[in-house]
Protein backbone atom coordinates (compact mmCIF):
# COMPACT_ATOMS: atom_id res chain seq x y z
CA UNK A 1 0.00 0.00 0.00
CA UNK A 2 1.41 3.39 -0.88
CA UNK A 3 1.68 6.30 1.54
CA UNK A 4 -1.29 8.28 0.20
CA UNK A 5 -3.57 5.28 0.64
CA UNK A 6 -2.29 4.68 4.15
CA UNK A 7 -2.86 8.30 5.06
CA UNK A 8 -6.44 8.16 3.77
CA UNK A 9 -6.97 5.00 5.75
CA UNK A 10 -5.63 6.74 8.86
CA UNK A 11 -7.92 9.72 8.31
CA UNK A 12 -10.98 7.52 7.82
CA UNK A 13 -10.14 5.47 10.87
CA UNK A 14 -9.54 8.52 13.05
CA UNK A 15 -12.79 10.12 11.89
CA UNK A 16 -14.69 6.96 12.74
CA UNK A 17 -13.28 6.99 16.26
CA UNK A 18 -14.66 10.49 16.77
CA UNK A 19 -17.99 9.77 15.13
CA UNK A 20 -18.48 6.65 17.21
CA UNK A 21 -17.63 8.63 20.32
CA UNK A 22 -14.54 6.70 21.34
CA UNK A 23 -12.51 9.87 21.28
CA UNK A 24 -13.30 13.53 21.80
CA UNK A 25 -11.57 16.87 21.25
CA UNK A 26 -9.11 16.36 24.08
CA UNK A 27 -7.39 13.65 22.03
CA UNK A 28 -6.81 16.22 19.30
CA UNK A 29 -5.32 18.53 21.92
CA UNK A 30 -2.80 15.82 22.77
CA UNK A 31 -1.94 15.33 19.11
CA UNK A 32 -1.24 19.04 18.84
CA UNK A 33 1.28 18.71 21.66
CA UNK A 34 3.27 16.18 19.67
CA UNK A 35 6.10 17.39 17.48
CA UNK A 36 9.44 16.27 16.07
CA UNK A 37 11.09 16.77 19.45
CA UNK A 38 8.36 14.77 21.19
CA UNK A 39 7.22 12.34 18.49
CA UNK A 40 5.87 9.75 20.92
CA UNK A 41 3.99 12.02 23.26
CA UNK A 42 0.52 10.68 22.48
CA UNK A 43 1.60 7.05 22.65
CA UNK A 44 3.31 7.75 25.98
CA UNK A 45 0.33 9.44 27.56
CA UNK A 46 -2.04 6.77 26.29
CA UNK A 47 0.25 4.06 27.69
CA UNK A 48 0.27 5.78 31.06
CA UNK A 49 -3.51 5.86 30.95
CA UNK A 50 -3.77 2.12 30.32
CA UNK A 51 -1.29 1.35 33.09
CA UNK A 52 -3.29 3.56 35.42
CA UNK A 53 -6.67 2.19 34.37
CA UNK A 54 -5.49 -1.40 34.64
CA UNK A 55 -4.64 -0.85 38.29
CA UNK A 56 -7.81 1.10 38.99
CA UNK A 57 -10.00 -1.57 37.41
CA UNK A 58 -8.30 -4.23 39.53
CA UNK A 59 -8.83 -2.18 42.66
CA UNK A 60 -12.47 -1.66 41.72
CA UNK A 61 -13.01 -5.36 41.14
CA UNK A 62 -11.60 -6.14 44.57
CA UNK A 63 -13.54 -3.36 46.27
CA UNK A 64 -16.86 -4.46 44.79
CA UNK A 65 -16.16 -8.02 45.83
CA UNK A 66 -16.06 -7.20 49.52
CA UNK A 67 -18.78 -8.29 51.91
CA UNK A 68 -19.20 -4.74 53.01
CA UNK A 69 -18.75 -2.47 50.01
CA UNK A 70 -16.91 0.80 50.64
CA UNK A 71 -18.67 3.10 48.20
CA UNK A 72 -16.54 6.08 49.11
CA UNK A 73 -13.43 4.22 48.11
CA UNK A 74 -15.05 3.02 44.91
CA UNK A 75 -16.19 6.53 44.08
CA UNK A 76 -12.64 7.78 44.60
CA UNK A 77 -11.26 5.19 42.18
CA UNK A 78 -13.93 5.93 39.58
CA UNK A 79 -13.30 9.66 39.98
CA UNK A 80 -9.64 9.03 39.17
CA UNK A 81 -10.49 6.93 36.15
CA UNK A 82 -12.93 9.55 34.96
CA UNK A 83 -10.25 12.19 35.28
CA UNK A 84 -7.56 10.37 33.40
CA UNK A 85 -9.88 9.15 30.65
CA UNK A 86 -11.08 12.72 30.23
CA UNK A 87 -7.49 13.92 29.98
CA UNK A 88 -6.73 11.67 27.04
CA UNK A 89 -10.08 12.16 25.34
CA UNK A 90 -11.40 8.64 25.93
CA UNK A 91 -14.99 9.83 25.87
CA UNK A 92 -16.89 6.56 26.20
CA UNK A 93 -14.79 5.49 29.17
CA UNK A 94 -15.38 8.86 30.78
CA UNK A 95 -19.13 8.65 30.24
CA UNK A 96 -19.21 5.19 31.79
CA UNK A 97 -17.46 6.61 34.83
CA UNK A 98 -20.04 9.35 35.19
CA UNK A 99 -22.84 6.78 35.30
CA UNK A 100 -20.77 4.63 37.64
CA UNK A 101 -20.39 7.49 40.14
CA UNK A 102 -24.12 8.07 40.18
CA UNK A 103 -24.68 4.46 41.21
CA UNK A 104 -21.96 4.78 43.86
CA UNK A 105 -23.88 7.67 45.32
CA UNK A 106 -27.00 5.52 45.38
CA UNK A 107 -24.93 2.73 46.95
CA UNK A 108 -26.35 0.32 44.40
CA UNK A 109 -23.95 -2.64 44.30
CA UNK A 110 -25.60 -4.45 41.40
CA UNK A 111 -25.65 -1.39 39.20
CA UNK A 112 -22.04 -0.69 40.14
CA UNK A 113 -21.05 -4.19 39.12
CA UNK A 114 -22.73 -3.66 35.76
CA UNK A 115 -20.90 -0.35 35.37
CA UNK A 116 -17.60 -1.96 36.21
CA UNK A 117 -18.18 -4.56 33.53
CA UNK A 118 -19.09 -1.85 31.06
CA UNK A 119 -16.13 0.36 31.86
CA UNK A 120 -13.79 -2.61 31.49
CA UNK A 121 -15.29 -3.27 28.07
CA UNK A 122 -14.93 0.34 27.01
CA UNK A 123 -11.32 0.48 28.15
CA UNK A 124 -10.62 -2.65 26.18
CA UNK A 125 -12.35 -1.33 23.09
CA UNK A 126 -10.58 2.03 23.08
CA UNK A 127 -7.28 0.32 23.77
CA UNK A 128 -7.70 -1.85 20.67
CA UNK A 129 -8.82 1.11 18.60
CA UNK A 130 -5.84 3.22 19.65
CA UNK A 131 -3.41 0.36 19.09
CA UNK A 132 -4.76 0.02 15.57
CA UNK A 133 -4.42 3.77 15.08
CA UNK A 134 -0.84 3.83 16.32
CA UNK A 135 0.01 0.86 14.12
CA UNK A 136 -1.30 2.73 11.09
CA UNK A 137 0.82 5.72 12.11
CA UNK A 138 3.92 3.57 12.39
CA UNK A 139 3.29 2.16 8.92
CA UNK A 140 2.94 5.63 7.46
CA UNK A 141 6.15 6.82 9.13
CA UNK A 142 8.02 3.68 8.07
CA UNK A 143 6.99 4.34 4.48
CA UNK A 144 8.44 7.83 4.75
CA UNK A 145 5.10 9.62 5.05
CA UNK A 146 3.76 11.94 7.72
CA UNK A 147 0.61 11.86 9.81
CA UNK A 148 -2.06 14.17 8.36
CA UNK A 149 -3.35 17.06 10.51
CA UNK A 150 -6.70 16.14 11.92
CA UNK A 151 -9.51 18.67 12.21
CA UNK A 152 -12.86 18.19 13.81
CA UNK A 153 -15.19 19.55 11.16
CA UNK A 154 -18.20 17.33 11.57
Amino acid at each position, binding site marked *: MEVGQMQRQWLDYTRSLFIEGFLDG*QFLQLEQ*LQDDNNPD*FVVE*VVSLFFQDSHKLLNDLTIALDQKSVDFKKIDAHV*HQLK*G*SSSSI*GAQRVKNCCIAFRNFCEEQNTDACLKCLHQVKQECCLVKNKLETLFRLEQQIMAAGGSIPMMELSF
Partner: protein
Amino acid sequence: MECEGVVSGVRMGESSEEVHVLAVDDSLVDRKVIERLLKILACKVTAVDSGVRALEYLGLDQSDAFVEGLKVDLIITDYCMPGMTGYDLLKKIKESSTFREIPVVIMSSENILPRIDRCLEEGAEDFIVKPVKLSDVKRLKDYGVGGRINKRKLPDTTELDLSSSPPSDSSSSPSISPSSPPVIDSPIQRLKMTTTALD
Protein backbone atom coordinates in the same frame (compact mmCIF):
# COMPACT_ATOMS: atom_id res chain seq x y z
CA MET B 1 4.22 4.57 47.24
CA GLU B 2 4.68 5.62 43.69
CA CYS B 3 8.23 6.47 42.70
CA GLU B 4 6.91 9.24 40.48
CA GLY B 5 7.10 11.24 43.72
CA VAL B 6 10.66 12.10 42.81
CA VAL B 7 10.82 15.74 41.95
CA SER B 8 11.84 16.49 38.41
CA GLY B 9 13.16 19.86 37.42
CA VAL B 10 15.88 22.29 38.25
CA ARG B 11 15.93 23.70 41.73
CA MET B 12 18.83 26.10 41.92
CA GLY B 13 20.66 28.51 39.78
CA GLU B 14 18.64 28.18 36.64
CA SER B 15 18.11 30.94 34.10
CA SER B 16 16.12 33.82 35.58
CA GLU B 17 14.34 34.41 32.27
CA GLU B 18 12.29 31.24 32.21
CA VAL B 19 9.02 31.03 34.08
CA HIS B 20 9.33 28.23 36.61
CA VAL B 21 6.09 26.43 37.33
CA LEU B 22 5.47 24.00 40.16
CA ALA B 23 2.74 21.60 39.04
CA VAL B 24 0.94 19.47 41.63
CA ASP B 25 -1.30 16.56 40.62
CA ASP B 26 -1.74 13.04 41.96
CA SER B 27 -2.63 11.72 38.50
CA LEU B 28 0.32 10.50 36.47
CA VAL B 29 -1.51 11.08 33.21
CA ASP B 30 -2.42 14.65 34.14
CA ARG B 31 1.10 15.41 35.33
CA LYS B 32 2.47 14.32 31.99
CA VAL B 33 -0.03 16.44 30.09
CA ILE B 34 0.40 19.59 32.18
CA GLU B 35 4.16 19.23 32.01
CA ARG B 36 4.08 19.05 28.23
CA LEU B 37 1.65 21.95 27.96
CA LEU B 38 3.89 24.15 30.10
CA LYS B 39 7.08 23.10 28.31
CA ILE B 40 5.55 23.99 24.97
CA LEU B 41 5.21 27.50 26.37
CA ALA B 42 8.92 27.41 27.30
CA CYS B 43 8.28 27.15 31.02
CA LYS B 44 10.53 25.26 33.35
CA VAL B 45 8.42 22.63 35.11
CA THR B 46 8.75 20.83 38.40
CA ALA B 47 5.99 18.26 38.77
CA VAL B 48 5.11 16.66 42.10
CA ASP B 49 2.40 14.18 43.00
CA SER B 50 1.02 15.66 46.21
CA GLY B 51 0.52 18.79 48.28
CA VAL B 52 2.90 17.38 50.87
CA ARG B 53 5.65 17.04 48.29
CA ALA B 54 4.92 20.53 47.03
CA LEU B 55 5.43 21.93 50.52
CA GLU B 56 8.60 19.87 50.88
CA TYR B 57 9.89 21.31 47.63
CA LEU B 58 9.14 24.84 48.77
CA GLY B 59 10.77 24.23 52.13
CA LEU B 60 7.45 24.81 53.88
CA ASP B 61 7.16 21.39 55.45
CA GLN B 62 8.99 21.98 58.71
CA SER B 63 9.02 25.72 59.06
CA ASP B 64 8.89 28.74 56.82
CA ALA B 65 12.50 28.02 55.88
CA PHE B 66 14.05 29.80 52.93
CA VAL B 67 15.47 27.47 50.29
CA GLU B 68 18.55 29.05 48.78
CA GLY B 69 18.19 29.74 45.07
CA LEU B 70 14.61 28.54 44.83
CA LYS B 71 12.55 30.55 42.39
CA VAL B 72 8.98 29.52 41.63
CA ASP B 73 6.89 31.86 39.50
CA LEU B 74 3.61 30.01 39.42
CA ILE B 75 2.01 27.09 41.20
CA ILE B 76 -0.65 25.06 39.47
CA THR B 77 -2.41 22.42 41.49
CA ASP B 78 -5.18 19.89 41.18
CA TYR B 79 -8.03 20.36 43.65
CA CYS B 80 -8.99 16.74 44.41
CA MET B 81 -5.99 14.96 45.81
CA PRO B 82 -5.82 12.36 48.57
CA GLY B 83 -4.56 13.73 51.88
CA MET B 84 -3.94 17.39 51.25
CA THR B 85 -6.30 18.92 48.72
CA GLY B 86 -5.34 21.72 46.35
CA TYR B 87 -7.36 24.04 48.54
CA ASP B 88 -5.36 23.05 51.64
CA LEU B 89 -2.16 23.61 49.70
CA LEU B 90 -3.38 26.99 48.53
CA LYS B 91 -4.10 28.03 52.13
CA LYS B 92 -0.66 26.92 53.30
CA ILE B 93 1.00 28.88 50.52
CA LYS B 94 -1.00 32.01 51.23
CA GLU B 95 -0.13 31.69 54.93
CA SER B 96 3.55 31.69 54.10
CA SER B 97 5.33 35.02 54.14
CA THR B 98 7.84 33.73 51.62
CA PHE B 99 5.40 32.35 49.08
CA ARG B 100 2.10 34.17 49.46
CA GLU B 101 2.84 36.39 46.48
CA ILE B 102 3.27 33.45 44.12
CA PRO B 103 0.17 33.07 41.95
CA VAL B 104 -1.63 29.80 42.55
CA VAL B 105 -3.97 28.30 39.99
CA ILE B 106 -6.37 25.50 40.83
CA MET B 107 -7.43 22.75 38.40
CA SER B 108 -10.48 20.59 38.84
CA SER B 109 -12.49 18.17 36.77
CA GLU B 110 -15.63 19.44 38.46
CA ASN B 111 -17.10 22.80 37.58
CA ILE B 112 -18.57 23.51 41.02
CA LEU B 113 -19.22 27.21 41.55
CA PRO B 114 -18.94 27.23 45.38
CA ARG B 115 -15.63 25.42 45.02
CA ILE B 116 -14.36 27.98 42.54
CA ASP B 117 -15.50 30.80 44.81
CA ARG B 118 -13.80 29.30 47.84
CA CYS B 119 -10.53 29.02 45.98
CA LEU B 120 -10.65 32.51 44.57
CA GLU B 121 -11.56 33.94 47.97
CA GLU B 122 -8.60 32.14 49.48
CA GLY B 123 -6.38 33.91 46.98
CA ALA B 124 -6.18 31.61 43.97
CA GLU B 125 -5.36 33.49 40.83
CA ASP B 126 -7.51 31.43 38.54
CA PHE B 127 -9.39 28.18 38.23
CA ILE B 128 -9.12 25.78 35.30
CA VAL B 129 -11.70 23.13 34.56
CA LYS B 130 -10.10 19.92 33.39
CA PRO B 131 -9.21 18.53 30.95
CA VAL B 132 -6.55 21.20 30.59
CA LYS B 133 -6.02 22.60 27.12
CA LEU B 134 -3.27 24.65 25.56
CA SER B 135 -5.49 27.74 25.60
CA ASP B 136 -5.93 27.40 29.39
CA VAL B 137 -2.20 27.25 29.95
CA LYS B 138 -1.46 30.11 27.57
CA ARG B 139 -3.61 32.35 29.71
CA LEU B 140 -1.71 31.28 32.83
CA LYS B 141 1.70 32.15 31.61
CA ASP B 142 0.93 35.83 32.07
CA TYR B 143 0.41 35.26 35.80
CA GLY B 144 3.86 33.74 36.10
CA VAL B 145 5.52 36.59 34.28
CA GLY B 146 3.39 39.19 36.06
CA GLY B 147 4.28 37.80 39.47
CA ARG B 148 7.97 37.98 38.78
CA ILE B 149 8.11 41.57 37.59
CA ASN B 150 5.76 42.68 40.37
CA LYS B 151 2.93 43.67 38.06
CA ARG B 152 -0.01 44.54 40.31
CA LYS B 153 -3.00 42.19 40.16
CA LEU B 154 -6.46 43.30 39.03
CA PRO B 155 -7.66 46.04 41.41
CA ASP B 156 -10.14 45.17 44.13
CA THR B 157 -13.68 45.89 42.84
CA THR B 158 -15.08 47.31 46.07
CA GLU B 159 -12.21 49.78 46.40
CA LEU B 160 -12.84 50.94 42.86
CA ASP B 161 -16.53 51.57 43.51
CA LEU B 162 -16.00 53.55 46.69
CA SER B 163 -13.36 55.86 45.27
CA SER B 164 -14.45 56.44 41.70
CA SER B 165 -18.24 56.86 41.71
CA PRO B 166 -20.68 58.70 44.01
CA PRO B 167 -22.40 56.14 46.27
CA SER B 168 -26.00 57.21 45.58
CA ASP B 169 -25.80 57.35 41.80
CA SER B 170 -25.82 53.61 41.11
CA SER B 171 -27.98 53.83 37.98
CA SER B 172 -25.27 55.48 35.93
CA SER B 173 -22.44 53.38 37.33
CA PRO B 174 -20.39 51.46 34.81
CA SER B 175 -20.97 48.18 36.64
CA ILE B 176 -22.64 45.23 35.00
CA SER B 177 -26.38 45.30 34.41
CA PRO B 178 -27.91 42.28 36.14
CA SER B 179 -30.53 41.68 33.44
CA SER B 180 -28.15 40.54 30.71
CA PRO B 181 -25.27 38.50 32.07
CA PRO B 182 -22.24 39.05 29.87
CA VAL B 183 -20.09 36.23 28.55
CA ILE B 184 -17.81 35.07 31.31
CA ASP B 185 -14.26 34.59 30.25
CA SER B 186 -12.60 33.54 33.47
CA PRO B 187 -13.60 32.90 37.07
CA ILE B 188 -11.86 36.13 38.09
CA GLN B 189 -14.25 38.12 35.88
CA ARG B 190 -17.22 36.30 37.29
CA LEU B 191 -16.23 36.87 40.90
CA LYS B 192 -15.66 40.56 40.25
CA MET B 193 -19.08 40.89 38.67
CA THR B 194 -20.73 39.14 41.59
CA THR B 195 -19.07 41.54 44.01
CA THR B 196 -20.17 44.55 41.94
CA ALA B 197 -23.76 43.32 41.65
CA LEU B 198 -24.01 43.00 45.41
CA ASP B 199 -23.22 46.69 46.01
